[in-house]
């Protein structure tokens, strides 16, 4: 059995002065994925932000390849891709420009027009490359945000309700993309209320770790 790449031990998070959950521990090896579930307001988003480094956990130990992520700093950021509730797009930029700037600022220096187009095609936005994001529907924006994940090659994917606003076909596309990512040795943490069909994914119910529920 290989070493776990991503290990979380005894994690607890708070919002304001209220502790949300505690004692969360899990390990992920290459090619593994976790489906994080739990009722509204139990702290799934808070947890994912803490794991990404955007938030700050109350307590706990988060390790990547055996080292603490706080110590790794920017090096850890070079290994992860995060998709939040918000899409992180700029409405005035076209689809292609959004993807290109994301790639460049995240270390995809060899990213050229061809790669951008390929990523857009993967999410079904090939025809919309030159359209500004503000002229897109909710689902199209979500897909554009997904295209950004494809141009930087990151082993760890953190996805917060990635299926929001996606139509039936796109949900399938995304599941396929995740499957491929895992086959290539990637890891994924996925928050979703919607069930989806990904062979071998483990479920993680945050409910069991809740400290205060309101």
């Amino acid at each position, binding site marked *: 059995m290989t070493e776990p790449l991503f290990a979380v031990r005894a994690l607890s998070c708070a919002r304001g002065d209220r502790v949300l959950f505690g004692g969360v521990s899990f390990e992920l090896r290459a090619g593994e994925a976790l489906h994080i579930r739990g009722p509204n307001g139990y702290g799934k988003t808070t947890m994912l932000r803490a794991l990404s480094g*955007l938030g700050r956990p109350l307590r706990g130990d988060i390790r990547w390849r055996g080292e603490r992520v706080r110590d790794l700093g920017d090096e850890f950021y070079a290994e992860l891709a995060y998709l939040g*509730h918000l*899409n992180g797009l700029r409405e005035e*930029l076209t689809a292609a420009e959004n993807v290109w700037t994301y790639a*460049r600022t*995240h*270390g995809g220096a060899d990213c050229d027009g061809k790669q951008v187009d390929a990523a857009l095609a993967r999410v079904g936005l090939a025809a919309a490359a030159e359209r500004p994001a503000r002229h897109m529907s909710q689902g199209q924006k979500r897909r554009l945000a997904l295209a*950004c994940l494809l141009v930087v090659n990151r082993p760890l994917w953190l996805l917060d309700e990635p299926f929001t606003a996606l139509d039936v076909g796109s949900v399938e596309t995304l599941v396929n993309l995740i499957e491929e990512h895992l086959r290539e040795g990637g890891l994924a943490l996925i928050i979703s209320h919607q069930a989806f069909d990904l062979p071998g994914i483990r479920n993680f119910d945050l409910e069991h770790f809740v400290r205060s529920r309101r």
Partner: protein
Amino acid sequence: MRGSLLGAMRAVFIRELLLFWRRRTEVANILVFFVIVTTLFPLAVGPERRELAHIAPGVLWVAALLATTLSLNQLFIIDYTEGSLDQMLLSPYPLTALVFAKLAAHWVLTGLPLALLSPLLAIQMALPDKAMGTLVLSLLLGTPILTLIGAIPAALTLGVRGGGVLVSLLVLPLYTPVLIFGAEAVAAAAGQEFAATAHLSLLAAFLVLALAFAPLACASALRVSLD
């Protein structure tokens, strides 16, 4: 990671230029705001030329300062509400460098045109011709300081409702020295009581200081705001 830091900074810079180009009316707006504020003064104070010339350096500098402050409100807020700032924080490059690139673009698109436009307004305000050079130079040195310092409160007040006014509140006391030396330099050049060089070199010293520390403080402020 195969990219380069400079490449990332260039990308941020280009991104900002693109955004500004798409919203080019806004860039124009900042200039027009500058023009209108300086125009309001003669209206409010009365049209005597001698008096106008006397208050001209002060009014021009206050107008430049207010225009910059106004444009600062918009600096991070859209990136914040749409989640791009989250992504910028998760970049593998030092946040300080990316912030610096962003501020540089901001200055090129606000402070620089403002400085270049100022002589036109100065004529309106009856500022003596001999002070024009100093006016432009003082604004070229001063406006980047305003941008650099002002970015810190802009970053700090991100999560905060009504942040816009709070930014002004935090920023304006910090601007005092810049305003004093900027306006004094122009007044000195206009009156030739003292040479303007002393004031200008002080402004330059401030600029160096701000370049060294402000991007760092701004990056820390962003991390705090998104926590």
